[in-house]
């Protein structure tokens, strides 16, 4: 396992982290001995089959569950302190927009909870909607938007309070291929413009390679990190990136790695 020497400077540091669920059927190891160092500004994808612990790892980082062993540091803080300091924005598999709030008021939600001054809130939310290109839909209700638009609103909401980190758990998994590729491009633009560090869970190899600076390949039973693959495709990436020979090479490498882990 590649242990980054500059772990003191990493934004996210995962050391020997394990997670065991106890149920009536006995113990299930959701994650075993995970080690990962993430630097500021990286775009990291976690990829693997279901049950490989990729979502568990993200939820551990977000302090939505607690690790049973090992140590996680986010900007030098434990996950619970990081959460209390609103260090990250989280985008879920579903948009999770609140039905009773209009689009803009959904983006306002975190700002209200974090007690941002009322005068700056609205300008900030409008800016975020412009960033994802939905300023025209500010007054609509979520059900009036398509699935892709709803997920864009949820990204705007996650960025509203300007966290350094963006956690994304298969955000485009439920969308069609064309919408997904458009949103991939848009996400890369957001990443370049905002300079956020993104940790992105997916089970699409294509998506992982296209978006990431590094891909963390995970395998199931027990869930663990199999390999971390550097994606040295040129930046900024665009529609043509997917046609580069190097894109296929890296995709193949990940595919073989996943297959090996599956046996």
């Amino acid at each position: 396992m590649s242990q980054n020497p500059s772990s003191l400077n990493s934004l996210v540091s995962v050391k020997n982290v394990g997670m065991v669920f106890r149920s009536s059927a006995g113990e299930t190891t959701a994650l075993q001995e995970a080690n990962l160092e993430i630097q500021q500004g990286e775009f990291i994808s976690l990829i693997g089959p279901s049950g490989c612990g990729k979502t568990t790892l993200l939820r551990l980082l977000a302090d939505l569950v607690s690790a049973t062993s090992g140590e996680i540091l986010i900007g030098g803080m434990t996950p619970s302190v990081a959460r209390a300091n609103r260090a990250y924005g989280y985008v879920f598999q579903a948009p999770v927009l609140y039905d009773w709030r209009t689009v803009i008021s959904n983006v306002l939600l975190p700002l209200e909870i974090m007690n941002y001054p009322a005068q700056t809130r609205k300008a900030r939310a409008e800016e975020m909607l412009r960033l994802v290109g939905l300023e025209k839909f500010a007054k609509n209700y979520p059900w009036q938007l398509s699935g892709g638009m709803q997920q864009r609103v949820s990204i705007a909401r996650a960025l509203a309070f300007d966290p350094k980190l963006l956690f994304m758990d298969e955000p485009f998994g439920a969308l069609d291929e064309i919408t997904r590729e458009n949103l991939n491009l848009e996400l890369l633009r957001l990443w370049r413009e905002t300079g956020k560090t993104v940790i992105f869970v997916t089970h699409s190899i294509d998506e992982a390679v296209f978006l990431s600076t590094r891909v963390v390949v995970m395998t199931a039973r027990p869930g663990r990190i199999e390999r971390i693959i550097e994606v040295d495709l040129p930046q900024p990436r665009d529609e043509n990136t997917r046609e580069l020979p190097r894109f296929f090479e890296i995709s193949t490498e990940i595919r073989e790695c996943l297959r090996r882990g599956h046996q």
Partner: protein
Amino acid sequence: MNNPTLEKKSNSFVPLLVVAVIGLILYLPVMLLANYGPAQKLLSSGAELECKTALECAFQMRNPVVPAPMQLWDGFKNMSLPPLEPTSVPYNLLVTAGETLLGLLLASVTGLLLAVLLVSSRAFERSVLPWLVASQTIPIVAVAPMLAVLLGQYGVQGWVPKALIAAFIAFFPICIGLAKGLRSPDPLSLDLMNTYHASRVQIFLKLRFPASVPYLFTALKVSAAAALVGSIVAEISSISFSGLGKMLAENSRASDGVALWVIMIYGAVLGIVLVALINWLERVLTPWQRKG
């Protein structure tokens, strides 16, 4: 993207009218069918009557099973005018409506408080919920006179005890409905709040309460009908000087069938108006709900 609201502007009154017309057409045959037998019996009893045949008598019995259209019309006229006289139905309807509305308000407040406690504490739920269920099995006809006497000792008289009885019946659906609503947010919606490190109070204010509003309105519609029945029963079964229930009791003792029908129809209209009022409030207060 255009607003994709699929609002068909079809007139929702048309089907309503069709049923009303069918009802009107059926009214006369049903009335004759119901009154013919009693009218025949009345004729053969040799009572002094102005009518010669059973068919004729079916239209003019003093205490008909179903009143004839003219009887009903006269009944409405006599009992409604002038509307604000203490002996006229509209005045008494207002009294009952006031009791019901106050009852609903009290029921909403207690229902909300209880629902919040039920959702916040498992121990509270386990220890109190069975008693709440038990409270609903007590017949109000039995509680009403007792409560009236009890409250009378503290100088609480008139329409307030009736409102309390209405609230006693109406709080239960509201409490259960709201508790379900407060628990309705899915795990991801709650996770979202946790990623913001939101406090319990904030989760209640920004997530649980708004999520439970549609449940509240569904419960209110059930409770409104129950509260109306509650206040009328309370009026009948305790000392009352006004209200639809008091009029029902009086006219029942006087065997005035036409009057009972008039009061019943007024009561039904009051129920419909109450539910319509709640529907209107729901549309105004929950604009996010999909129409149709």
